[in-house]
């Protein structure tokens, strides 16, 4: 069964208007979703990418150039990713669509992982 990668794009948001209870509720939704895909045997891996910047390497006159960012001006960043296993895109979409990320204004980019064979 192929693997699919869910890249979770998010817009930097102001959370100061949320009450602690509201934030805890959102956390609960994500945890429930994650446990569900684990229980269904779909979960493969996931990682959180750190919020602060990163480095951008660009090939430049035979060498390369490193810049901070790349997110300084970007409206969206990738907050993290999941790898899931699914029969095909239909099933992968089915798993992804219940992710709370969509409910809170985020985008999910879904890509099939190329396997070795």
């Amino acid at each position, binding site marked *: 069964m192929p693997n699919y990668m869910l890249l979770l794009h998010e817009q930097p948001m102001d*959370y*100061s*208007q*949320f*009450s*602690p*209870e*509201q*934030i*805890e509720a*959102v*956390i609960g939704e*994500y*945890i429930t*979703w*994650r446990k569900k895909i684990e229980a269904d045997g779909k979960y493969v891996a*996931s*990682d*959180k990418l750190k*919020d602060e910047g990163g480095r951008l390497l660009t090939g430049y006159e035979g060498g390369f150039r490193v810049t901070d960012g790349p997110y300084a001006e970007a409206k969206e960043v990738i*907050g*993290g*990713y*999941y790898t899931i296993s699914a029969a095909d895109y239909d099933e992968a979409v089915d798993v992804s669509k219940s992710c*709370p*990320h969509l409910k809170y204004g985020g985008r999910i980019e879904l890509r099939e992982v190329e396997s070795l064979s």
Partner: protein
Amino acid sequence: MVSILARRFGYQHLERIEDAVQDALVAAMKKWPFTGEPENARAWLIETAKNRVIDHLRRDGRSETLEAAEEAAAEKIEDAFLSGEIEEDELRMIFACCHPSIPPDARVALTLKTVGGFSVVEIARAFLSNKEAIAKMLTRAKAKLRDQKDIDVPSQQELVNRRDVVLKVLYLMFNEGYAATEGEELVRKDLCFEAIRLVAIVAKHPPARHPKVNALLALFLFQAARLETRIDQNGELLLLEDQDRSQWNKVMLSEGLKQFRLSASGDEVTDYHLEAEIAAVHALSRDFASTDWERIIECYDELQHRQFSPVAELNRIVAIEKLRGPHVALSALESLSKRTDLSRNAIYLLTLGHLLSLKGDRRQAATAFEAALDLSPNQPVRRFLKRRIELLRSA
């Protein structure tokens, strides 16, 4: 969490602590979906928030804040969760929020924010205010708190007065939830339940506990047991006589009774005792017809004897009608309106309309309800009044 950290760092850093708790929660929200929840999530949150406060204090660089920072850094807060100290920290926090130096109208909001974890937007909605006004009020209140030296739960004589302020604040919080004055919702259960949670903390812990706290808790529980039945499936207002008593919350009623019994352990009968007893009479009557109105009127008489209140008098008059009929009640209402000008009071007009319609004066009753309608911004109440007016006018 705010209460726990405030206890350690001092209430003068309240704003910073609130920000740190918020930051920790947001960090968890961004991280845990990918990494999974740590084994002890709450301890992780509080450690994270604590470290953020410490960072702030270190950056601040003043020697006394540095000292507080190092002290806190050395201590593992996790232990507090095990020893049940949290409630004691919350108790301290409640007393701090209801400190006499805080303006009375800011106390409920500050308590909701710091102890209850309500957001500024939620508080603004509860108090029919905008979030800027509430934010400003909270900032001013926190500044007052910052200037206070002695913030612990006070002792002896001081405690008696301070506890009364705390109870009053919780009473207002509950009432705001019980009778939302404006908008589409008739009741705001979250406010009621927070008031119950907090008064239960006060009732439980020495030195704050006292029979009158049990009385207030009993009152809240009796009222809250009926919350669900005050609204029908369509969100419309249901009067006590039309409510389905079998749907009253039995757990809350029996806990209310337990608290009511505990409240009798002292030798003082407070206003809260009397109000709780009125609520108990209603809660214990099998049906509306068998309500012990005699006892209810006695309680209102005693309340009025202590301190006259027009709203309590209106309630007393409604009870009088049940026992002695609309004519006697209407003349009591007339003498009340001579004593206080209530021509712009919605509850007065509602009572007047109610009594007139019982007496059979349909036209006058409708006029009174129409005047009440003009003064009622709450939507379910407005629809209720419109239905009554229509019925009265149609015949």
